[in-house]
């Protein structure tokens, strides 16, 4: 037999949202008269487009509002434009974007350096927290990296 308790008095609010008359009790589709009329709703005012916004080719226009930070730029931007030529159903759309993300990491570092900012990789990775809360793990990583570098140097010297 299933092991089920039957006294739930210790649980504040037990069963309060269980409505036996409300069957099924999960959110049902709320059908409205507009349900199958297509894109006919009265659209919110359109946000003015002042920067390049890529839009999914599975919709005819931009949505009424959109985020404007970080428009596509550089090589990663070119890759994103290319990726947006494919529908969301096409793997190249997403792979293209993931690759662009990787390319933009390098562009980000170049931009940092150009503006005279040397990124503090230790801090950006949360190194201080790692030292504080996982000193052993951190030491392990340092030793491991040192060992690999040492080994590589030794091997290269031997050649």
């Amino acid at each position, binding site marked *: 037999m299933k092991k089920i308790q039957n006294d739930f008095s210790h649980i504040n*609010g037990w069963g309060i949202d269980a409505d036996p008359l409300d069957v099924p009790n999960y959110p049902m589709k709320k059908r409205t008269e507009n349900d199958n009329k297509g894109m006919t709703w009265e659209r919110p005012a359109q946000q003015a487009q002042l920067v390049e916004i890529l839009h999914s080719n599975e919709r005819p226009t931009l949505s009424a509002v959109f985020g404007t930070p970080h428009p596509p730029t550089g090589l990663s931007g070119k890759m994103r434009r290319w990726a947006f030529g494919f529908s969301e159903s096409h793997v190249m759309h997403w792979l293209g974007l993931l690759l662009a993300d990787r390319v933009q990491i390098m562009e980000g570092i170049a931009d940092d350096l150009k503006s005279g900012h040397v990124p503090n990789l230790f801090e950006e990775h949360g190194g201080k*927290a*790692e030292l504080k809360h996982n000193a052993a793990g951190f030491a392990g990583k340092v030793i491991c990296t040192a060992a690999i570098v040492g080994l590589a140097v030794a091997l290269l010297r031997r050649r």
Partner: protein
Amino acid sequence: MNYRGPYRVRADRNMPMPRIEHSGDAIVRVTRSCICGSDLHLYHGMVPDTRIGTTFGHEFIGVVEEVGADVTNLKVGDNVLVPFNIACGKCVFCEQQLFGNCHESNSEATAVGGIFGYSHTAGGFDGGQAEYVRVPYADVGPLVIPENMDHDDAVLLTDVVPTGYQAAEMAGIKPGDTVVVFGAGPIGIMAAKCAWLFGAGRVIVIDHLEYRLEFVKNYAQCEAYNFRSLEDPVLFIKKTTDWMGADVCIDAVGCEAAGSAFHTITGRKMMLQSGSAIALHWAINAVKKGGIVSIVGVYGPTGNIIPIGNVVNKGLTLRANQASVKRLLPKLIEHVQAGRIDPKAIVTHRVPLEEVADAYHIFSAKLDNCIKTILIPPSARK
């Protein structure tokens, strides 16, 4: 905060000040924001079109600083909680209260509505792990925080509580049902708690982090098991349910699930699938025939390896969505005020926004027994 690449973020004082870009916008000065399990998918570089320089953060509250010409429901100085979904309130999906699936808030993808600070795939909006944030459709989403409400509770009502509740709601729990929740993060904890409100007869949570299992056992008054010591979690659930399977299973883990070398390598390392789907795999196989699997764990857009044949052969119902925060808020505020849900009890870390890089690392690496982190900008600490 400023995203620089996988596992790299930094606090940046030179981020541009957001401005009103649409007559329905508001600018909100953030007083608290949270780091969410969903942010980890961004932080780990798993979400396509996460551009360098993006500010994350979809769970935040704050004070209205400025409103656009058409905003009538809010005024400068209001303390607001802002649902993580950006919703127009007019499209056919908003009309159906599917506020997480709005069609007027995301140009980049039709597969999801706009979400604050959640990559260009979710609309390209900067998020609330910042001092100021642009809030579109300010008349629709934001809600003035009730006078007597704790602000830690308020910030958890922007995502965690509604998502946990909707996970239980979508599971169609009937009184007496055995509910298995995969994941003891903030979302799984809240789903377990809310399962009782629907009359669950038994609630079981599965994870592998002992400190979270210990927490959920007390907080949600449920059973909690470590899948590392179970050998086969599906078999365990079958045995403990008189060989029938759970009535409902909830996936509150998403695409970075641990527990399967195959999924970790193909999904998280090689990205041949949208992350690891082992928790969903377990959920499908551990639920009884004709049962319901409710998915709130987030997965990427390219697809995952799951036993869909078993879904067919067992006649399962899968239900899933981004939580519709606005739809659920009135009911959940009532539950919080009546003491049935105590959201702020899950907060373990309160961190100055300037230390965002450390905060991300701690939450991501599950250091220092972290469950939920709140970031507090300098202006809110005075």
